[in-house]
């Protein structure tokens, strides 16, 4: 079977056409591990997909992954847990060019999981008594205080998996899984970038992490290849 028979497969360019100005996007990754490089690079070349709200643990790294999208001035707001190590993000925030909303990492992961599972929100002990709790509903359960966190959804999710099969079932690589499986459940349009597309039936069902019904489109990562364990941009 050829990869052409993956009916969900589209080009990165066509995928990016679905993004509208001012959209909110869930983008997978922990730093640049498990991040959809090809899709992100394609957004940087677009003119329409600007003023985006990006929900992602970090903004990649300086100049890499979502860090590139920041430099190309496509991001208006970032919602995530940790931006300190991307100096460009800190600079943009200081200059008033980037809004930042901080959410503790566990609350971020759970909020996206909830968003995809039809759960409006949840109570957690994380952040109680801190600045994060300001303005949040508090409630006591068995003598302990919890705060309410709303579930998170977005119009689009751009995720990264290792492989898709021709139906759109996904498997991930090592810790590149991170936020991707939850994001696959929490958006109206889910676009999965993968390094490889294999024939349906060849993946062990026990190993499939994201079932195909969550995945609307599959984009092949054709811009980056793994050399010496790192993703390196292909020479054109």
């Amino acid at each position, binding site marked *: 079977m050829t990869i052409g028979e993956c009916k969900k497969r589209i080009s990165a360019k066509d995928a990016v056409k679905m993004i509208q100005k001012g959209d909110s996007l869930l983008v997978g990754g922990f730093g640049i591990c498990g991040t959809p490089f090809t899709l992100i690079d394609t957004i940087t070349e677009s003119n329409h997909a600007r003023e985006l709200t990006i929900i992602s643990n970090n903004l990649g790294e300086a100049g890499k992954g979502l860090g590139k999208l920041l430099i190309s001035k496509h991001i208006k707001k970032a919602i995530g847990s940790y931006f*300190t*190590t991307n100096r460009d993000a800190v600079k943009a925030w200081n200059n008033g060019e980037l809004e930042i909303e901080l959410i*503790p990492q566990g609350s971020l992961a759970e909020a996206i999981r909830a968003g995809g599972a039809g759960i409006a929100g949840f109570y957690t002990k994380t952040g109680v008594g801190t*600045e994060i709790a300001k303005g949040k509903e508090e409630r006591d359960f068995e003598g302990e205080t919890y705060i309410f966190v709303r579930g998170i959804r977005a119009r689009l999710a751009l995720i990264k998996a290792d492989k898709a099969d021709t139906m759109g079932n996904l498997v991930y690589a090592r810790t590149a899984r991170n936020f991707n499986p939850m994001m696959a459940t929490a958006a109206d349009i889910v676009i999965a970038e993968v390094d490889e597309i294999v024939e349906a039936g060849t993946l062990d069902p026990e190993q499939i992490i994201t079932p195909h019904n969550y995945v609307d489109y599959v984009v092949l990562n054709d811009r980056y290849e793994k050399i010496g364990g790192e993703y390196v941009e292909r020479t054109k």
Partner: protein
Amino acid sequence: MLSGLSNLRDARIRIAKRIVKELHAGAVVNLGVGIPSLIQNYLKPDSHVYLQSENGLLGMGPTPPKDEIDMNLISASKHPISLGIGSSLFSSADSFAMIRGGHIDIAVMGALQVSEKGEIANWAVPGKDILGVGGAMDLVASAKKIIIAITHVTKDRTPKIIQKLTYPSSGTRAANLIVTEKALFEVKDNTLLLKEIAEDSSLQEIKQLTEAHFIISDDLQTMKIN
């Protein structure tokens, strides 16, 4: 200059080595960034301590040789790592369910400040560019035991163990143990108990460099590393 230690690096290594002794066989341990991330280098291969990495791994192994590096396999500090025997991989939601559900025995984390009640500030400095909280608040709220790994004072010799936090706190729960290159404090009933002093320090120096009130253990010991 830090008394008795030629540089900051030695201080950090001493702290890491001392904390290794607190990690018992069978413990599930989360190591934070900074000094805690050094601990892995001093764990014996047969220690049976299981390291959890917040980005989705239980059973983190050491840094691999260069030709085996795979950037799809990284630590929370975003460094390449390996898979230990019996390791497992999972999503961020499952990882934080592990953390928030109370399944982590010991969290070792850095801090900017610790109060005399053991309260922790380790995510933000007012007026400075620290735009991150990461998993710190999740661990503070839910790890069974919290060990703080910090140098005793800042680079300009300002005490980090102080009466009241001046930086934003990371949660209402207190640390159980504070380990510096000079001393080890246990937090008991909202009070700091000085239990160990490093060989090259003294009670007088600890008093001088600790703003917080503390009581001295009846069984005060010299800090032993190995």
